[in-house]
């Protein structure tokens, strides 16, 4: 009788209360953490993870937003490489040109400016930092107003009027509509607004470096500023350099809409300012070839990931 009851308890314990107890134990130990995490995690999954997964899945299908997606294997990727002349002739070279100048160029500029600012006293430093940062606060809408008037195509445009005043121009130039100038203007405008959060992080990073490091190096005979930058400043702030690099890569690809904003049309005049982001929009929202657009999205995400990996290699703290 006694053993029977014990056995029953053991069996029941295993079946129900054991699992319940271990679940309650887990809930007690880790449940609080997950409760705090859950609002962020839920939004993160719904608006970041699911769209990325959906893009990956859709990229293997034909999908026109009317009929359900139909699986077509790698066809989208194959036609992207072999048949999409616009992509190979304009979009990819444009994107690489834009990304190489705005990404590393803007990044180096941000670092040099941060380095100069760090060597000024606090009040002028704050004022300069504010001036350099302010363009990045309002990238996009408000700025479109400004750039459109500055680069306006008739003679009331500031740039035209200025150049004609100097006698460098006879006729006004349609800056934003001409294929040979659009890309340059896009790069200038993006660089102008690229001293963002990464720039602030690098400035803070330089200021955090202990002055003793520089003093020790000076005693050891280090004399030039360039030596200081490459042997002390950058190695001492690798984490901030990496953060700045990632922000700069993301910012560069995110800024891709600028050509369409400036020229007012997608595709941009003769595809001169067409970047990969515009190509996605062109196929997805104008031609409703959403499966194909998704394949281009995946390529874009992989590019960002690749460049970020390169940056990580350069600035990894350990290894």
């Amino acid at each position, binding site marked *: 009788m006694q053993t029977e009851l014990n056995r029953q308890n053991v069996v029941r314990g295993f079946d129900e209360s054991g699992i319940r107890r271990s679940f309650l134990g887990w809930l007690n130990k*880790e449940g*609080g*953490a*997950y409760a*705090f*995490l859950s*609002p*962020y995690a839920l*939004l*993160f999954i719904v*608006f970041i993870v699911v*769209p990325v997964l959906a*893009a990956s899945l*859709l990229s293997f299908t034909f999908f026109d937003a009317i009929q359900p997606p139909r699986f077509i294997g790698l066809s989208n990727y194959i036609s992207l490489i072999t048949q999409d002349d616009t992509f190979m002739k304009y979009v990819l070279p444009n994107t690489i040109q834009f990304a190489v100048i705005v990404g590393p160029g803007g990044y180096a500029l941000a670092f040099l*400016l941060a380095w100069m*600012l*760090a*060597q*000024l*006293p606090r009040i002028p430093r704050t004022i*300069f*930092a*504010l*001036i350099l*940062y*302010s363009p990045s606060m*309002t*990238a*996009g*809408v*408000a*700025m479109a107003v400004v750039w459109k008037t*500055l680069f306006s195509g008739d*003679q009331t445009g*500031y740039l035209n009027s200025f150049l004609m005043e100097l006698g460098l121009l006879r006729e006004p130039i349609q800056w934003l509509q001409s294929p040979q100038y659009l890309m340059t203007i896009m790069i200038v405008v993006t660089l*102008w607004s690229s001293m963002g*959060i990464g720039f*602030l992080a690098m400035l803070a*990073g330089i200021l*955090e470096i202990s*002055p003793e490091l*520089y003093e020790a190096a000076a005693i050891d005979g280090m004399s030039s500023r360039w030596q200081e930058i490459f042997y002390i400043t950058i190695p001492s*702030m690798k*984490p*901030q350099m*990496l*953060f700045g690099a990632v922000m700069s890569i*993301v910012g560069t*690809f*995110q800024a891709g*809409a600028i050509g369409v904003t400036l020229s007012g*049309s997608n595709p941009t005049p003769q595809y001169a300012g067409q970047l990969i*982001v515009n190509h*996605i929009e062109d196929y997805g929202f104008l031609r409703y070839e959403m499966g194909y657009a*998704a394949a281009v*999205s995946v390529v874009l*995400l992989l590019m*960002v990931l690749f460049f970020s990996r390169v940056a990580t290699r350069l600035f990894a*703290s*350990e290894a």
Partner: protein
Amino acid sequence: MKWFSRYTGVKNRGINPQGFHVSQIKFYVLLVPLSALMLLPIIYIFSSAFKPPDELFAFPPRFFVVNPTLKNFTDLFSKLSNSGIPVSRYLFNSIVITLVTVLASIFVSSTAAYALSKKRFKLKQTLFVINNVALMFVPIAVTIPRFLVVKNLSLLDTFWVHILPVLAMPVGLFLLKQFIDGIPDEVIEAAQIDGASDWWIYWRIILPMIQPALATIAILTFQAAWNNAEISTLYINNESLRTLAFYLSTLTSTTATGANAVAGQGIAAAAALIMFLPNLVIFIFLQGQVMSTMSRSGLK
């Protein structure tokens, strides 16, 4: 000669000086013209918002306003959009949406950052790594699947579609987590020994100690929400739910009819100033806090 050596000696040479030093002159020589150039478009926003029509279209164009007027602003607010919505409605939407987004984002990111920094659980490291990978996320790349998600959740044409997609901000979580890492564990353990609950610790210990980081998140979210015209374009058909950023983008797009583009320049300038000014004011007030957050922003 004493005054001179003060500016040439070793004391203020190098990083984070206390005062002026001759070695700084070369930086001023470079920075002053560059800043002036960077500042031109910003000055232009201020100047053109107060220009009367004859100065807006003057030839040759004049950069600075001569006879400032508030006419552009009164025009802006007395105007109805093409679909009959008063501009003040767009402004009201923008203000409410931005306020709710900033508050919700602070709550969502700080609770998650507290868990990732101070709680112990198995997936902690993994989740932080996932969030760091998501720093590289480019929202514009997945516009289409995001649209499908929003549509399937029946969020199209709702107030919440302005807010929910902006809230999960990997940079925000990252910065907050780094900041909370700086709070010593002993402080929290002491509170636990006194019997404090997780919620109490979060509310009474963590939040007050991370105010600089919260200010930074507030600024980042503010910029993301206040300047967002995209959500109104993609997810909203109901004109009365759209934002000021969207209205401004309709004023400047070249697809607008010629007449509108000309008559609209004055009010576009005024609207651009209203869009820009809050960004600037908020950053000026909070810049000290932002800098102290940024010093812990290192990505390892």
